[in-house]
Protein backbone atom coordinates (compact mmCIF):
# COMPACT_ATOMS: atom_id res chain seq x y z
CA UNK A 1 0.00 0.00 0.00
CA UNK A 2 1.14 3.55 -0.68
CA UNK A 3 2.85 5.26 2.26
CA UNK A 4 1.35 8.61 3.19
CA UNK A 5 3.29 11.72 2.23
CA UNK A 6 5.89 9.86 0.18
CA UNK A 7 6.82 10.30 -3.46
CA UNK A 8 4.52 7.42 -4.39
CA UNK A 9 1.62 9.19 -2.68
CA UNK A 10 2.36 12.42 -4.49
CA UNK A 11 2.55 10.58 -7.81
CA UNK A 12 -0.86 9.02 -7.22
CA UNK A 13 -2.35 12.38 -6.26
CA UNK A 14 -0.89 13.95 -9.39
CA UNK A 15 -2.40 11.20 -11.54
CA UNK A 16 -5.85 11.80 -10.05
CA UNK A 17 -5.51 15.59 -10.21
CA UNK A 18 -5.23 15.47 -13.98
CA UNK A 19 -8.89 14.51 -14.30
CA UNK A 20 -10.79 17.30 -16.10
CA UNK A 21 -13.60 17.25 -13.52
CA UNK A 22 -11.06 17.91 -10.76
CA UNK A 23 -9.39 20.69 -12.72
CA UNK A 24 -12.77 22.34 -13.19
CA UNK A 25 -13.31 22.33 -9.43
CA UNK A 26 -9.95 23.95 -8.66
CA UNK A 27 -9.68 26.38 -11.57
CA UNK A 28 -9.02 29.25 -9.15
CA UNK A 29 -5.74 27.67 -8.05
CA UNK A 30 -2.79 29.54 -9.50
CA UNK A 31 0.84 29.68 -8.42
CA UNK A 32 3.04 27.81 -5.99
CA UNK A 33 1.73 25.97 -2.90
CA UNK A 34 4.31 24.51 -0.54
CA UNK A 35 3.85 21.96 2.23
CA UNK A 36 6.51 20.99 4.78
CA UNK A 37 5.79 17.92 6.85
CA UNK A 38 8.14 17.33 9.74
CA UNK A 39 9.20 14.22 11.63
CA UNK A 40 7.73 11.54 9.39
CA UNK A 41 7.66 8.02 10.90
CA UNK A 42 10.80 6.96 9.00
CA UNK A 43 12.82 9.82 10.50
CA UNK A 44 12.65 12.29 7.60
CA UNK A 45 11.25 15.77 7.02
CA UNK A 46 9.47 16.08 3.68
CA UNK A 47 8.42 18.92 1.42
CA UNK A 48 6.05 18.91 -1.53
CA UNK A 49 5.57 21.79 -3.93
CA UNK A 50 2.59 22.08 -6.26
CA UNK A 51 2.35 24.70 -8.99
CA UNK A 52 -0.99 25.37 -10.65
CA UNK A 53 -2.12 27.40 -13.63
CA UNK A 54 -5.88 27.94 -13.66
CA UNK A 55 -6.41 24.65 -11.85
CA UNK A 56 -3.99 22.65 -14.03
CA UNK A 57 -1.06 21.17 -12.21
CA UNK A 58 2.00 22.37 -14.15
CA UNK A 59 4.83 21.39 -11.81
CA UNK A 60 5.39 19.27 -8.71
CA UNK A 61 8.47 18.83 -6.58
CA UNK A 62 9.30 16.45 -3.77
CA UNK A 63 12.25 16.29 -1.39
CA UNK A 64 13.14 14.74 1.93
CA UNK A 65 15.94 15.10 4.43
CA UNK A 66 16.87 13.52 7.73
CA UNK A 67 14.91 15.21 10.51
CA UNK A 68 15.53 17.82 11.69
CA UNK A 69 16.31 18.99 8.15
CA UNK A 70 17.46 22.40 9.28
CA UNK A 71 17.82 23.90 5.82
CA UNK A 72 14.18 23.15 5.07
CA UNK A 73 12.96 24.24 8.48
CA UNK A 74 14.87 27.56 8.35
CA UNK A 75 14.02 28.49 4.77
CA UNK A 76 12.26 31.87 4.78
CA UNK A 77 8.83 32.27 3.25
CA UNK A 78 9.05 33.69 -0.23
CA UNK A 79 6.62 35.95 -2.03
CA UNK A 80 6.93 33.50 -4.92
CA UNK A 81 4.74 31.20 -2.84
CA UNK A 82 0.99 31.67 -2.62
CA UNK A 83 0.93 29.60 0.52
CA UNK A 84 3.22 27.54 2.71
CA UNK A 85 1.93 25.16 5.35
CA UNK A 86 4.19 23.50 7.91
CA UNK A 87 3.24 20.93 10.51
CA UNK A 88 4.32 17.66 12.13
CA UNK A 89 3.57 14.47 10.21
CA UNK A 90 1.15 13.25 12.87
CA UNK A 91 -1.00 16.34 12.45
CA UNK A 92 -0.99 16.10 8.64
CA UNK A 93 -1.91 12.43 8.92
CA UNK A 94 -4.74 13.23 11.34
CA UNK A 95 -6.02 15.82 8.90
CA UNK A 96 -5.89 13.35 6.02
CA UNK A 97 -7.77 10.77 8.08
CA UNK A 98 -10.39 13.35 9.00
CA UNK A 99 -9.57 12.98 12.70
CA UNK A 100 -9.13 16.72 13.07
CA UNK A 101 -10.74 19.47 11.05
CA UNK A 102 -8.72 21.92 8.95
CA UNK A 103 -10.02 24.59 11.30
CA UNK A 104 -8.61 22.81 14.33
CA UNK A 105 -5.26 22.54 12.59
CA UNK A 106 -5.32 26.21 11.65
CA UNK A 107 -5.84 27.26 15.24
CA UNK A 108 -3.12 24.98 16.60
CA UNK A 109 0.31 26.37 17.45
CA UNK A 110 1.77 23.34 15.65
CA UNK A 111 0.30 24.22 12.24
CA UNK A 112 1.98 27.17 10.60
CA UNK A 113 0.24 28.74 7.63
CA UNK A 114 2.00 31.48 5.68
CA UNK A 115 0.55 33.56 2.88
CA UNK A 116 -2.30 36.00 2.39
CA UNK A 117 -5.09 34.45 4.48
CA UNK A 118 -7.80 36.52 2.82
CA UNK A 119 -6.76 35.07 -0.54
CA UNK A 120 -6.51 31.59 0.94
CA UNK A 121 -10.02 31.84 2.33
CA UNK A 122 -11.27 32.72 -1.13
CA UNK A 123 -9.64 29.54 -2.37
CA UNK A 124 -11.35 27.42 0.30
CA UNK A 125 -13.74 25.56 -2.06
CA UNK A 126 -10.78 24.61 -4.27
CA UNK A 127 -8.75 23.49 -1.23
CA UNK A 128 -11.67 21.39 -0.07
CA UNK A 129 -11.80 19.64 -3.44
CA UNK A 130 -8.04 19.11 -3.40
CA UNK A 131 -8.09 17.70 0.15
CA UNK A 132 -10.97 15.43 -0.74
CA UNK A 133 -9.06 14.01 -3.69
CA UNK A 134 -5.87 13.47 -1.69
CA UNK A 135 -7.61 11.86 1.27
CA UNK A 136 -9.32 9.38 -1.07
CA UNK A 137 -5.94 7.77 -1.88
CA UNK A 138 -5.67 4.60 0.15
CA UNK A 139 -2.53 4.80 2.28
CA UNK A 140 -0.69 3.40 5.25
CA UNK A 141 0.45 5.88 7.86
CA UNK A 142 3.04 3.89 9.81
CA UNK A 143 6.22 3.03 7.95
CA UNK A 144 9.92 2.84 8.64
CA UNK A 145 11.32 3.29 5.14
CA UNK A 146 10.45 4.09 1.55
CA UNK A 147 12.81 1.45 0.17
CA UNK A 148 10.16 -0.43 -1.73
CA UNK A 149 9.18 2.63 -3.72
CA UNK A 150 10.41 3.43 -7.17
CA UNK A 151 11.63 6.81 -8.38
CA UNK A 152 12.52 7.82 -4.86
CA UNK A 153 14.97 10.75 -4.99
CA UNK A 154 17.98 10.73 -2.68
CA UNK A 155 17.52 12.32 0.72
CA UNK A 156 19.05 15.70 1.36
CA UNK A 157 21.61 15.91 4.11
CA UNK A 158 20.54 17.74 7.23
Amino acid sequence: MIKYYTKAWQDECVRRMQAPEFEAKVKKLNGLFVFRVLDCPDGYDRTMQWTFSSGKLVDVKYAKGVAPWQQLRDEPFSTAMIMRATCPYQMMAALNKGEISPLKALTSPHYKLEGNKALLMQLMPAFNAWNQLCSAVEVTYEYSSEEDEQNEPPAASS
Partner: protein
Amino acid sequence: MGFICKNEKLERFDFGFFLPTQVKFGKGKVANLATELQIENDLAEKSTAMLITDRGVAAAGLVDKVLAGITSTATIKAAVVYDSVPSDSDTALVEELASQVQANGIDLIIAVGGGSVIDTAKFVSVLGIYGGKAKDYEGGFMVPGPCIPVIAIPTTVGTGSEVTFIAVAKDKESGLKLPIASPYLYPRMAVLDPEMVVSLPAKLVAQTGMDALTHAIEAYVSTESQPFSDALALKATEMIYDNILAATQHDSDALAKMQIAATMAGIAFTNAPVGATHAISHTVGALYNIHHGLANAIALPYVMEFNLEACPSRYASLARAMGIEERLSDIEIGLRGIELVKELRRKLCIPERFREVGVPTDADTIDKICKLALEDVSMAFNPRKAEMADFRPLIEKSI
Protein backbone atom coordinates in the same frame (compact mmCIF):
# COMPACT_ATOMS: atom_id res chain seq x y z
CA MET B 1 7.75 60.02 15.71
CA GLY B 2 4.01 59.59 16.11
CA PHE B 3 2.69 59.19 19.65
CA ILE B 4 0.21 56.34 19.20
CA CYS B 5 1.91 53.87 16.86
CA LYS B 6 5.57 54.90 17.37
CA ASN B 7 6.35 54.40 13.68
CA GLU B 8 6.16 50.65 14.09
CA LYS B 9 7.67 48.35 11.49
CA LEU B 10 5.50 47.26 8.58
CA GLU B 11 5.08 43.55 9.25
CA ARG B 12 3.05 42.48 6.23
CA PHE B 13 3.92 43.08 2.61
CA ASP B 14 0.97 41.26 1.13
CA PHE B 15 -2.57 42.30 1.98
CA GLY B 16 -5.78 43.65 0.54
CA PHE B 17 -8.56 45.90 1.77
CA PHE B 18 -12.14 45.59 0.58
CA LEU B 19 -15.28 47.58 1.26
CA PRO B 20 -18.02 47.27 -1.37
CA THR B 21 -20.75 48.51 1.00
CA GLN B 22 -21.80 52.11 0.49
CA VAL B 23 -22.11 53.86 3.86
CA LYS B 24 -24.56 56.74 4.25
CA PHE B 25 -24.66 58.65 7.52
CA GLY B 26 -27.02 61.41 8.57
CA LYS B 27 -30.04 62.41 10.56
CA GLY B 28 -33.13 61.87 8.45
CA LYS B 29 -31.51 59.40 6.05
CA VAL B 30 -34.20 56.82 6.80
CA ALA B 31 -37.03 59.31 6.31
CA ASN B 32 -35.65 59.91 2.82
CA LEU B 33 -34.68 56.33 2.10
CA ALA B 34 -36.55 56.10 -1.20
CA THR B 35 -34.67 59.11 -2.50
CA GLU B 36 -31.38 57.62 -1.36
CA LEU B 37 -32.19 54.42 -3.23
CA GLN B 38 -33.42 56.11 -6.38
CA ILE B 39 -30.18 57.96 -6.97
CA GLU B 40 -28.31 54.65 -7.16
CA ASN B 41 -28.52 53.20 -10.66
CA ASP B 42 -28.63 49.59 -9.54
CA LEU B 43 -31.31 50.19 -6.90
CA ALA B 44 -33.56 52.69 -8.64
CA GLU B 45 -35.68 50.06 -10.36
CA LYS B 46 -36.20 47.84 -7.33
CA SER B 47 -39.90 47.61 -6.61
CA THR B 48 -40.70 44.88 -4.12
CA ALA B 49 -39.00 44.93 -0.74
CA MET B 50 -38.96 42.58 2.21
CA LEU B 51 -38.39 44.35 5.50
CA ILE B 52 -36.82 42.16 8.17
CA THR B 53 -36.71 43.28 11.77
CA ASP B 54 -37.43 42.23 15.37
CA ARG B 55 -40.20 42.95 17.85
CA GLY B 56 -38.19 45.41 19.91
CA VAL B 57 -37.42 47.54 16.88
CA ALA B 58 -41.04 47.38 15.74
CA ALA B 59 -42.28 48.32 19.23
CA ALA B 60 -39.99 51.33 19.23
CA GLY B 61 -41.77 52.61 16.12
CA LEU B 62 -38.68 52.34 13.94
CA VAL B 63 -40.31 50.07 11.37
CA ASP B 64 -42.96 52.68 10.69
CA LYS B 65 -40.21 55.22 10.03
CA VAL B 66 -38.58 52.92 7.50
CA LEU B 67 -41.86 52.04 5.80
CA ALA B 68 -42.68 55.75 5.51
CA GLY B 69 -39.19 56.31 4.13
CA ILE B 70 -39.32 53.69 1.41
CA THR B 71 -42.86 54.40 0.30
CA SER B 72 -42.36 58.16 0.13
CA THR B 73 -42.08 57.72 -3.62
CA ALA B 74 -44.15 55.47 -5.84
CA THR B 75 -41.31 53.17 -6.87
CA ILE B 76 -40.96 50.77 -3.95
CA LYS B 77 -43.59 48.96 -1.99
CA ALA B 78 -42.96 46.76 1.01
CA ALA B 79 -44.49 43.44 0.04
CA VAL B 80 -43.55 41.58 3.17
CA VAL B 81 -42.72 42.78 6.66
CA TYR B 82 -41.31 40.20 9.03
CA ASP B 83 -40.89 41.62 12.53
CA SER B 84 -40.14 38.60 14.72
CA VAL B 85 -36.47 37.78 14.27
CA PRO B 86 -35.24 36.36 17.61
CA SER B 87 -31.95 37.35 19.20
CA ASP B 88 -30.46 34.07 17.99
CA SER B 89 -31.95 33.65 14.54
CA ASP B 90 -31.88 30.12 13.17
CA THR B 91 -31.69 28.19 9.94
CA ALA B 92 -35.38 27.25 9.94
CA LEU B 93 -36.36 30.93 10.01
CA VAL B 94 -34.02 32.00 7.20
CA GLU B 95 -35.24 29.13 5.03
CA GLU B 96 -38.87 30.09 5.67
CA LEU B 97 -38.21 33.75 4.84
CA ALA B 98 -36.36 32.72 1.69
CA SER B 99 -39.43 30.84 0.48
CA GLN B 100 -41.46 34.01 1.02
CA VAL B 101 -38.90 35.96 -0.99
CA GLN B 102 -39.32 33.57 -3.88
CA ALA B 103 -43.12 33.53 -3.62
CA ASN B 104 -43.41 37.31 -3.60
CA GLY B 105 -40.80 38.24 -6.20
CA ILE B 106 -38.77 40.23 -3.67
CA ASP B 107 -35.92 42.16 -5.29
CA LEU B 108 -34.69 44.18 -2.31
CA ILE B 109 -34.19 43.26 1.35
CA ILE B 110 -34.15 45.89 4.04
CA ALA B 111 -32.78 44.82 7.42
CA VAL B 112 -33.64 47.05 10.36
CA GLY B 113 -32.07 45.93 13.62
CA GLY B 114 -28.96 44.52 15.24
CA GLY B 115 -26.66 41.69 14.28
CA SER B 116 -29.22 38.89 14.32
CA VAL B 117 -31.59 40.79 12.03
CA ILE B 118 -28.90 41.83 9.55
CA ASP B 119 -27.37 38.34 9.50
CA THR B 120 -30.84 36.88 8.89
CA ALA B 121 -31.25 39.23 5.94
CA LYS B 122 -27.90 38.11 4.52
CA PHE B 123 -28.90 34.44 4.69
CA VAL B 124 -32.26 35.25 3.07
CA SER B 125 -30.53 37.19 0.30
CA VAL B 126 -28.58 34.03 -0.59
CA LEU B 127 -31.34 31.43 -0.19
CA GLY B 128 -33.88 33.70 -1.88
CA ILE B 129 -31.93 33.42 -5.13
CA TYR B 130 -30.06 30.13 -4.97
CA GLY B 131 -32.46 28.07 -2.83
CA GLY B 132 -31.44 25.03 -0.81
CA LYS B 133 -30.65 24.88 2.88
CA ALA B 134 -28.58 27.32 4.90
CA LYS B 135 -26.12 24.51 5.63
CA ASP B 136 -25.35 24.23 1.90
CA TYR B 137 -23.44 27.51 2.14
CA GLU B 138 -21.65 26.88 5.44
CA GLY B 139 -18.05 28.03 5.65
CA GLY B 140 -16.08 30.32 3.42
CA PHE B 141 -16.89 31.35 -0.13
CA MET B 142 -19.60 28.80 -0.84
CA VAL B 143 -22.10 31.38 -2.17
CA PRO B 144 -22.03 31.00 -5.95
CA GLY B 145 -22.74 34.55 -7.07
CA PRO B 146 -24.49 37.89 -6.48
CA CYS B 147 -27.49 37.85 -4.15
CA ILE B 148 -30.55 40.01 -3.58
CA PRO B 149 -29.23 43.41 -2.46
CA VAL B 150 -29.49 44.13 1.26
CA ILE B 151 -29.95 47.60 2.72
CA ALA B 152 -28.78 47.39 6.34
CA ILE B 153 -30.09 49.91 8.84
CA PRO B 154 -28.45 49.23 12.21
CA THR B 155 -30.43 50.07 15.34
CA THR B 156 -27.66 49.15 17.78
CA VAL B 157 -24.15 50.52 18.18
CA GLY B 158 -22.18 47.33 17.92
CA THR B 159 -22.80 44.65 15.35
CA GLY B 160 -20.78 45.86 12.38
CA SER B 161 -22.73 43.34 10.29
CA GLU B 162 -23.92 46.21 8.09
CA VAL B 163 -20.44 46.27 6.50
CA THR B 164 -19.18 42.69 6.80
CA PHE B 165 -19.17 39.63 4.56
CA ILE B 166 -20.11 37.21 7.32
CA ALA B 167 -23.43 36.00 8.68
CA VAL B 168 -24.19 33.58 11.51
CA ALA B 169 -27.39 31.73 12.33
CA LYS B 170 -28.08 28.96 14.80
CA ASP B 171 -28.23 25.54 13.18
CA LYS B 172 -31.69 24.32 14.15
CA GLU B 173 -30.54 20.71 14.20
CA SER B 174 -27.20 20.86 16.04
CA GLY B 175 -27.84 23.96 18.12
CA LEU B 176 -24.40 25.28 17.12
CA LYS B 177 -23.64 28.47 15.22
CA LEU B 178 -23.58 28.10 11.45
CA PRO B 179 -21.35 30.74 9.85
CA ILE B 180 -21.24 31.68 6.19
CA ALA B 181 -18.72 34.04 4.63
CA SER B 182 -18.63 35.36 1.10
CA PRO B 183 -17.90 38.63 -0.68
CA TYR B 184 -21.47 38.37 -2.02
CA LEU B 185 -22.77 38.86 1.52
CA TYR B 186 -21.65 42.45 1.89
CA PRO B 187 -24.78 44.59 2.21
CA ARG B 188 -25.23 46.87 -0.77
CA MET B 189 -25.73 49.88 1.50
CA ALA B 190 -25.47 50.69 5.22
CA VAL B 191 -27.67 53.55 6.36
CA LEU B 192 -26.53 55.09 9.65
CA ASP B 193 -29.23 57.38 10.92
CA PRO B 194 -28.76 58.61 14.50
CA GLU B 195 -32.54 58.74 14.86
CA MET B 196 -32.54 54.93 14.68
CA VAL B 197 -30.46 54.55 17.87
CA VAL B 198 -31.85 57.40 19.91
CA SER B 199 -34.20 55.17 21.88
CA LEU B 200 -31.79 52.24 22.33
CA PRO B 201 -31.93 51.17 26.01
CA ALA B 202 -28.83 51.99 28.06
CA LYS B 203 -28.13 48.31 28.72
CA LEU B 204 -28.03 47.58 24.99
CA VAL B 205 -25.89 50.66 24.33
CA ALA B 206 -23.42 49.24 26.86
CA GLN B 207 -23.44 45.67 25.57
CA THR B 208 -23.44 46.43 21.86
CA GLY B 209 -20.93 49.24 22.40
CA MET B 210 -18.57 46.81 24.12
CA ASP B 211 -19.12 44.48 21.16
CA ALA B 212 -17.89 47.27 18.89
CA LEU B 213 -14.89 47.92 21.16
CA THR B 214 -14.06 44.21 20.97
CA HIS B 215 -14.24 44.33 17.17
CA ALA B 216 -11.86 47.30 17.09
CA ILE B 217 -9.35 45.84 19.56
CA GLU B 218 -9.36 42.35 18.04
CA ALA B 219 -9.01 43.75 14.50
CA TYR B 220 -6.02 45.80 15.63
CA VAL B 221 -4.19 42.77 17.05
CA SER B 222 -5.44 40.32 14.38
CA THR B 223 -2.85 38.26 12.53
CA GLU B 224 -4.34 39.89 9.40
CA SER B 225 -4.13 43.49 10.64
CA GLN B 226 -2.74 45.99 8.18
CA PRO B 227 -2.47 49.79 7.98
CA PHE B 228 -5.91 50.38 6.45
CA SER B 229 -7.75 48.31 9.05
CA ASP B 230 -5.44 49.66 11.77
CA ALA B 231 -6.51 53.23 11.05
CA LEU B 232 -10.17 52.34 11.41
CA ALA B 233 -9.62 50.15 14.46
CA LEU B 234 -7.60 52.74 16.37
CA LYS B 235 -10.01 55.57 15.59
CA ALA B 236 -12.97 53.38 16.54
CA THR B 237 -11.27 52.39 19.81
CA GLU B 238 -10.75 56.04 20.70
CA MET B 239 -14.30 57.06 19.75
CA ILE B 240 -15.91 54.19 21.64
CA TYR B 241 -13.80 54.66 24.75
CA ASP B 242 -14.56 58.39 24.77
CA ASN B 243 -18.29 58.09 24.13
CA ILE B 244 -19.77 54.84 25.39
CA LEU B 245 -20.54 56.08 28.91
CA ALA B 246 -22.18 59.28 27.68
CA ALA B 247 -24.09 57.26 25.09
CA THR B 248 -25.68 55.19 27.85
CA GLN B 249 -26.98 58.50 29.25
CA HIS B 250 -28.57 59.14 25.83
CA ASP B 251 -26.25 61.95 24.87
CA SER B 252 -27.21 62.26 21.20
CA ASP B 253 -23.76 63.37 20.05
CA ALA B 254 -22.15 60.42 21.83
CA LEU B 255 -24.70 57.99 20.40
CA ALA B 256 -24.06 59.23 16.86
CA LYS B 257 -20.31 58.84 17.34
CA MET B 258 -20.86 55.33 18.73
CA GLN B 259 -22.91 54.48 15.65
CA ILE B 260 -20.13 55.66 13.35
CA ALA B 261 -17.42 53.95 15.41
CA ALA B 262 -19.29 50.64 15.42
CA THR B 263 -19.39 50.69 11.62
CA MET B 264 -15.72 51.67 11.41
CA ALA B 265 -14.86 48.73 13.70
CA GLY B 266 -16.98 46.51 11.44
CA ILE B 267 -14.99 47.59 8.38
CA ALA B 268 -11.78 46.96 10.32
CA PHE B 269 -12.66 43.43 11.37
CA THR B 270 -14.09 42.34 8.04
CA ASN B 271 -10.56 43.00 6.70
CA ALA B 272 -8.64 41.89 9.80
CA PRO B 273 -10.74 39.15 11.44
CA VAL B 274 -11.40 38.96 15.16
CA GLY B 275 -9.74 36.48 17.53
CA ALA B 276 -10.05 34.60 20.81
CA THR B 277 -12.62 36.86 22.46
CA HIS B 278 -15.03 36.01 19.69
CA ALA B 279 -14.10 32.33 19.79
CA ILE B 280 -15.15 32.31 23.45
CA SER B 281 -18.27 34.43 22.99
CA HIS B 282 -19.46 32.37 20.01
CA THR B 283 -19.13 29.25 22.18
CA VAL B 284 -20.63 30.59 25.39
CA GLY B 285 -23.34 32.41 23.45
CA ALA B 286 -24.40 29.25 21.63
CA LEU B 287 -24.26 27.00 24.72
CA TYR B 288 -25.89 29.31 27.26
CA ASN B 289 -27.81 31.80 25.12
CA ILE B 290 -25.82 34.83 26.26
CA HIS B 291 -25.99 38.09 24.33
CA HIS B 292 -23.05 38.33 21.95
CA GLY B 293 -21.98 41.80 23.08
CA LEU B 294 -22.23 40.84 26.74
CA ALA B 295 -20.17 37.69 26.20
CA ASN B 296 -17.52 39.70 24.36
CA ALA B 297 -17.46 42.32 27.12
CA ILE B 298 -16.88 39.65 29.75
CA ALA B 299 -14.14 37.82 27.85
CA LEU B 300 -12.30 40.81 26.33
CA PRO B 301 -9.91 41.88 29.13
CA TYR B 302 -8.95 38.28 29.94
CA VAL B 303 -8.10 37.66 26.29
CA MET B 304 -6.13 40.93 26.17
CA GLU B 305 -4.05 39.68 29.13
CA PHE B 306 -3.61 36.31 27.41
CA ASN B 307 -2.48 37.90 24.14
CA LEU B 308 -0.36 40.73 25.56
CA GLU B 309 2.95 38.91 25.36
CA ALA B 310 2.35 38.06 21.67
CA CYS B 311 2.06 41.68 20.53
CA PRO B 312 2.82 44.16 23.34
CA SER B 313 3.43 47.11 21.01
CA ARG B 314 -0.06 46.71 19.54
CA TYR B 315 -1.72 46.70 22.95
CA ALA B 316 0.38 49.71 23.92
CA SER B 317 -0.93 51.61 20.86
CA LEU B 318 -4.50 50.71 21.82
CA ALA B 319 -3.89 51.95 25.36
CA ARG B 320 -2.53 55.22 24.00
CA ALA B 321 -5.62 55.55 21.78
CA MET B 322 -7.64 55.29 25.00
CA GLY B 323 -5.65 58.07 26.62
CA ILE B 324 -2.67 56.51 28.40
CA GLU B 325 0.16 59.05 28.22
CA GLU B 326 2.87 57.62 30.47
CA ARG B 327 6.17 56.63 28.94
CA LEU B 328 6.47 53.05 30.15
CA SER B 329 7.38 49.75 28.51
CA ASP B 330 4.91 48.35 25.97
CA ILE B 331 3.89 45.61 28.41
CA GLU B 332 3.26 48.12 31.19
CA ILE B 333 1.26 50.42 28.92
CA GLY B 334 -0.64 47.43 27.55
CA LEU B 335 -1.55 46.41 31.11
CA ARG B 336 -2.77 49.95 31.80
CA GLY B 337 -4.99 49.67 28.73
CA ILE B 338 -6.43 46.40 29.98
CA GLU B 339 -7.21 48.06 33.32
CA LEU B 340 -9.05 50.82 31.43
CA VAL B 341 -11.22 48.22 29.70
CA LYS B 342 -11.98 46.53 33.02
CA GLU B 343 -12.83 49.89 34.61
CA LEU B 344 -15.07 50.77 31.68
CA ARG B 345 -16.84 47.44 32.02
CA ARG B 346 -17.48 48.12 35.72
CA LYS B 347 -18.84 51.60 35.02
CA LEU B 348 -21.20 50.08 32.45
CA CYS B 349 -22.46 47.61 35.09
CA ILE B 350 -21.38 44.66 32.96
CA PRO B 351 -20.60 41.44 34.88
CA GLU B 352 -16.96 40.49 35.20
CA ARG B 353 -17.34 36.73 34.91
CA PHE B 354 -19.57 34.32 33.05
CA ARG B 355 -20.83 32.72 36.28
CA GLU B 356 -22.72 35.96 36.93
CA VAL B 357 -24.82 35.34 33.82
CA GLY B 358 -25.57 31.70 34.53
CA VAL B 359 -22.65 29.77 33.05
CA PRO B 360 -21.76 26.74 35.22
CA THR B 361 -18.28 26.67 36.71
CA ASP B 362 -17.62 22.92 36.86
CA ALA B 363 -14.61 21.32 35.18
CA ASP B 364 -16.67 19.65 32.45
CA THR B 365 -18.16 22.99 31.40
CA ILE B 366 -14.73 24.60 31.29
CA ASP B 367 -13.36 21.73 29.21
CA LYS B 368 -16.29 21.93 26.83
CA ILE B 369 -15.93 25.69 26.34
CA CYS B 370 -12.16 25.29 25.81
CA LYS B 371 -12.59 22.56 23.23
CA LEU B 372 -15.27 24.33 21.21
CA ALA B 373 -13.61 27.75 21.39
CA LEU B 374 -10.28 26.34 20.19
CA GLU B 375 -12.10 24.99 17.12
CA ASP B 376 -13.78 28.32 16.34
CA VAL B 377 -12.56 29.92 13.12
CA SER B 378 -11.70 33.14 14.98
CA MET B 379 -8.81 31.38 16.72
CA ALA B 380 -7.04 31.23 13.36
CA PHE B 381 -6.65 35.02 13.50
CA ASN B 382 -5.74 35.40 17.17
CA PRO B 383 -2.20 36.75 17.66
CA ARG B 384 -1.39 33.99 20.13
CA LYS B 385 -2.09 30.42 19.11
CA ALA B 386 -3.15 28.08 21.84
CA GLU B 387 -3.76 24.54 22.91
CA MET B 388 -5.90 23.21 25.73
CA ALA B 389 -3.16 23.57 28.35
CA ASP B 390 -2.58 27.28 27.59
CA PHE B 391 -6.20 28.12 26.99
CA ARG B 392 -7.81 26.48 30.02
CA PRO B 393 -6.46 29.02 32.56
CA LEU B 394 -7.93 31.81 30.41
CA ILE B 395 -11.35 30.17 30.42
CA GLU B 396 -11.09 29.50 34.18
CA LYS B 397 -10.42 33.18 34.79
CA SER B 398 -13.33 34.35 32.68
CA ILE B 399 -15.76 31.81 34.17
